[in-house]
């Protein structure tokens, strides 16, 4: 039996452990609920039982359907009581029990009576309950009362009806839209909360009518809205109107900007902040418009209320992404926030400072951050590490101090995610800033000396194996790696053995010493470690003498597999250990999942160790192997570039086909990746018939059909074309899939003997100039540009005509050339009227190309562009200009 609720007793106030709900049980409370059926209701006791029911529900207890129905019916009896407190509890419990449609009918008449009651409290609550449990048919019956309630002189009743309207608009929009007149009247209410809810509902009713919203905003911005919250809403609606309208082209003024600016002087902080944020989020906001907003946000930074400080620094953090210069005035205030008690505020302040700081302030900032790092949680530290990585990529010359900072925090305590973030950052810096390589690698080496995470140790060892041998003095890393063999678990030891072997294979001078170390590993107590050591000792050759390792051996040991790992794993799982050895050639070279993987790779920033070393090169390696294994294409020479797969069919069609364009010096090979998605069909002799009549410079030289294409097992067919050597010929190709289709018996999985020839139209394929360009970035564009020299520089100006925005024009040219944007210059700040974009790439014939694009707005929409190209070959510089001129 549950403890009865005890009336508050002063004597017991000190017994803090005592709970009125001690030992409460669902069964007992349900029993107690029978008091609801008493002919003489005791309101106090009934309220206590409802409280217990609410407590149970709040503690995660659930009622079965039968229990809930029983309680619900009992509760309906309580409408007999005239006790006001009890009636309110009844309203709450009805909503909590959420009765089903057939039960609702029991209470509707009582609730409808309450809705027209003289007691305001009943009216308001009955409206809320009814609207919560009602359906469309009942709503039409009570609509009249709801309309009256909206203009009720008691603000609580009016608000209850209005908020009900907001919820009902989702389910019964037609009915709620009929209340427009009443809602409009409520917007003029003197009561602030009614005005606020009425405005919200009115906007929702009209939100699809742009003109009506415009009118609403125009009239309200002129008048006086009393409620600060309604004012906030109005600011949001105003920003929406501003977004959808255009500037006054003659004066350059933005409609309603004066209203927003005026709100910055409002007495409510909430309104000031809302206005400031609205201004910072305006499209193409100018620094003149931004200044007053930044000024009020700056004042908030030193507010005594943490919420205001947080709101201000969060907004400034966003502004810093697009307008770093505008925020620099607040830097001093933000620096003082680094020591803010609230770590969320401190972290936002630091990440903002890292975005707005200039090269000269980096060192000072790093000093402050060092003190701060020790007392924040890992999740905040990760945000800071990411910001420091971006900063380092922005100011490569500062790599020394930033790298030192990263290595210092790497030595301190921290969880896996945090350590991984640091290691990833160091790896990315090593890859992107050549000068940082040696120091970065040494930091990583020191880290693995005392690293508790096996995953990170093995990843770093793998990375050392790739980068270490290419450094000026590879021998200095050996000690760190070999220490792992002595001190770590088997997984790390095996990784260390592989890394040692890589050094041996790549650096001939180290080979004898590596052999000595590898021989010691032969006595390891772990199978895998011993096996690896044996394998490397037997394959590297030369018996430890200083000889060059055979390329074939290197490829065998450390080359990439030319099959996707998932497929290999599946094939190995399906392999039955038998006399017949596993044949790696039997693994399907499925490229079906590749588009997805590639999309991921391009959309995500490099993630350091977590991701496989840059996706495209390894894909190119795989393609190169694949193509060179086909005799028809063996004579084409070295593969220059393989494009990302281009879909030639819609999603969810019978046959899914995409194509990869492989570019050689004098040839082009189209690799059609086909998937048959019909289980009842087997396709044979699959080819693609290509019509090259719109690609005059190309002549078909070979076609390699696919013998069989069973259900859901992708295969490839190839078509090769010859083209003038070294020329970036372009053209359009139309494609038709031709095959013999055979029915498959679903029960046996066997195909019928006879098949029918069939064709399937695919989409056209275009070969464009960008296909002849490899996206290859440079870490320091300025240096690269200077060192390329002016010999083959070609400069010209172009008019790009009217464009939606500068950003669109920049993107169009980047896509046209297919080059790698450098130093983040592909991002155009929203309000700029001019922009410089830097691109780099390698053109067909391995010619390095650098491009400097200067864009400017000429008149309101016309974009003019100055294109400067430097390359190692004058004809390539000219070709780039031709591409732009003809694009």
């Amino acid at each position: 039996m549950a403890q009865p609720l005890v009336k508050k007793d002063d004597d017991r106030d000190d017994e803090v452990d005592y709970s009125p709900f001690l030992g409460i049980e669902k069964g007992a409370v349900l029993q107690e609920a029978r008091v609801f059926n008493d002919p003489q209701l005791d309101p106090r006791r009934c309220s206590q039982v409802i409280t217990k029911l609410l407590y149970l529900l709040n503690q995660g207890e659930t009622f079965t359907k039968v229990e809930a129905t029983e309680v619900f019916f009992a509760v309906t009896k309580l409408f007999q009581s005239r006790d006001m407190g009890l009636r309110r509890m009844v309203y709450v419990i009805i909503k909590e029990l959420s009765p089903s449609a057939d039960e609702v009918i029991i209470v509707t008449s009582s609730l409808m009576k309450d809705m027209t009651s003289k007691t305001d409290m009943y009216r308001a609550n009955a409206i809320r309950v009814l609207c919560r449990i009602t359906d469309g048919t009942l709503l039409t019956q009570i609509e009249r009362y709801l309309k009256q309630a909206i203009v009720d002189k008691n603000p609580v009743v009016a608000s209850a009806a209005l908020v009900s309207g907001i919820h009902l608009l989702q389910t019964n929009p037609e009915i709620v839209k009929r209340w427009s007149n009443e809602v409009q009247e409520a917007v003029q209410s003197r009561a602030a909360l009614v005005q606020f809810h009425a405005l919200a509902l009115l906007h929702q009713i009209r939100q699809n009518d742009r003109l009506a919203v415009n009118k609403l905003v125009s009239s309200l911005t002129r008048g006086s809205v009393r409620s600060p919250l309604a004012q906030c809403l109005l600011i949001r609606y105003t920003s929406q109107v501003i977004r959808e309208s255009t500037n006054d082209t003659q004066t350059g003024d933005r409609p309603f900007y004066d209203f927003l600016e005026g709100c910055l002087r409002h007495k409510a902080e909430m309104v000031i902040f809302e206005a400031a944020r609205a201004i910072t989020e305006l499209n193409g906001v100018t620094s003149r418009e931004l200044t007053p907003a930044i000024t009020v946000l700056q004042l908030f930074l030193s507010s005594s209320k943490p919420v205001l400080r947080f709101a201000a620094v969060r907004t400034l953090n966003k502004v810093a992404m697009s307008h770093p210069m505008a925020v620099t005035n607040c830097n001093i205030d933000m620096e003082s926030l680094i020591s803010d008690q609230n770590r969320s505020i401190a972290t936002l302040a630091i990440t903002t400072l890292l975005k707005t700081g200039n090269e000269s302030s980096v060192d000072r900032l790093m000093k402050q951050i060092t003190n701060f790092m020790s007392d924040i949680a890992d999740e905040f530290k990760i945000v800071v590490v990411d910001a420091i990585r971006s900063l380092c990529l922005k100011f490569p010359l500062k790599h020394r101090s930033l790298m030192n900072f990263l290595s210092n925090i790497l030595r301190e305590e921290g969880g896996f995610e945090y350590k991984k973030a640091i290691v990833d950052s160091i790896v990315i810096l090593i890859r992107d800033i050549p000068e940082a390589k040696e120091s970065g690698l040494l930091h990583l080496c020191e880290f693995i000396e005392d690293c508790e995470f096996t995953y990170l140790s093995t990843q770093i060892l793998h990375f050392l194996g790739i980068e270490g041998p290419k450094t000026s003095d590879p021998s200095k890393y050996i000690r760190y790696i070999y220490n792992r063999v002595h001190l770590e678990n088997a997984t790390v030891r095996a990784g260390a053995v592989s890394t040692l072997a890589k050094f041996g294979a790549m650096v001939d001078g180290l080979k004898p010493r590596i052999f000595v170390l590898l021989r010691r590993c032969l006595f390891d107590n772990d199978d895998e470690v011993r096996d690896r050591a044996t394998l490397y000792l037997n394959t590297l050759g030369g018996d430890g003498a200083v000889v060059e390792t055979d390329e074939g051996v290197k490829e065998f040991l450390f080359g990439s597999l030319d099959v996707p790992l998932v497929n290999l794993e599946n094939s190995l799982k399906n392999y039955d250990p038998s006399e017949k050895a596993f044949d790696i050639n039997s693994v399907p070279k499925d490229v079906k999942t590749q588009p997805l993987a590639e999309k991921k790779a391009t959309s995500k920033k490099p993630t350091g160790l977590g991701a496989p070393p840059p996706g495209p090169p390894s894909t190119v390696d795989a393609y190169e192997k694949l193509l060179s294994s086909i005799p028809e294409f063996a004579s084409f020479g070295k593969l220059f570039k393989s494009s990302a797969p281009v879909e030639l069919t819609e999603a969810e069609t019978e046959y899914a086909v995409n194509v990869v364009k492989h570019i050689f010096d004098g040839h082009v090979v189209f690799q059609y990746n086909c998937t048959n998605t019909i289980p009842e069909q087997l396709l044979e002799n699959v080819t693609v018939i290509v019509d090259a009549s719109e690609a005059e410079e190309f002549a078909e030289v070979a076609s390699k059909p696919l013998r069989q294409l069973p259900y859901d097992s992708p295969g490839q067919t190839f078509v090769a074309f010859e083209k003038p050597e070294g020329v970036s010929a372009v053209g359009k190709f139309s494609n038709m899939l031709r095959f013999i289709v055979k029915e498959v018996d679903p029960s046996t999985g066997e195909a019928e003997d006879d098949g029918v020839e069939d064709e399937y139209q695919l989409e056209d394929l275009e070969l464009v100039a960008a296909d002849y360009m490899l996206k290859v970035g440079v870490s320091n564009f300025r240096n690269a540009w200077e060192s390329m020299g002016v010999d083959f520089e070609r400069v010209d100006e172009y008019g790009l005509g009217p464009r939606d925005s500068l950003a669109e024009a920049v993107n169009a040219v980047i896509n046209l050339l297919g080059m790698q944007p450098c130093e983040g210059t592909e991002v155009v700040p929203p309000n700029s009227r001019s922009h410089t974009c830097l691109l780099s790439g390698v053109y067909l014939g391995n010619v390095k190309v650098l491009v400097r694009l200067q864009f400017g707005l000429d008149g309101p929409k016309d974009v003019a562009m100055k294109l400067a190209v430097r390359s190692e070959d004058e004809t390539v510089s000219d070709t780039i200009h031709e591409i732009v001129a003809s694009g």
Partner: protein
Amino acid sequence: MILAVLFANSEGNILVERFNGVPAEERLHWRSFLVKLGADNLKGVKNEELLVASHKSVYIVYTVLGDVSVYVVGKDEYDELALAEVIFVITSAVKDVCGKLPTERLFLDKYGRICLTLDEIIWKETVTFCVIANEHPFAFSSMDTAANVLPHPFS
């Protein structure tokens, strides 16, 4: 929308919770996250001093009131400022119901009224209005401000 309102005692046990639009399987995560947040930061904080945090795109404003800690979680239009207003109403209402800063015992004694008040402050994911549960149901106490605490029911 307002995703959650949660009351916990000083040991981190949940006293009252209301979730809106949070799937059941994520509630446990939120509970423990909020309680940990409180344990890490609420020590030594003055009554009703607001603390703020953000987790992904969600904002949390929380405070301590006597023996009880209060957390309000919101997203989109219910940003930190709107939540600060919401929590202000909630704490004012709880103080009014209890007559002073609540001890855990007092809070549980007044459990029914607190649920009632909470229901009238927050309706589904939108703040509706605040009725301080005094003897007179419409006594807004000092709260003409109660009328001002109604954040943005955008959807």
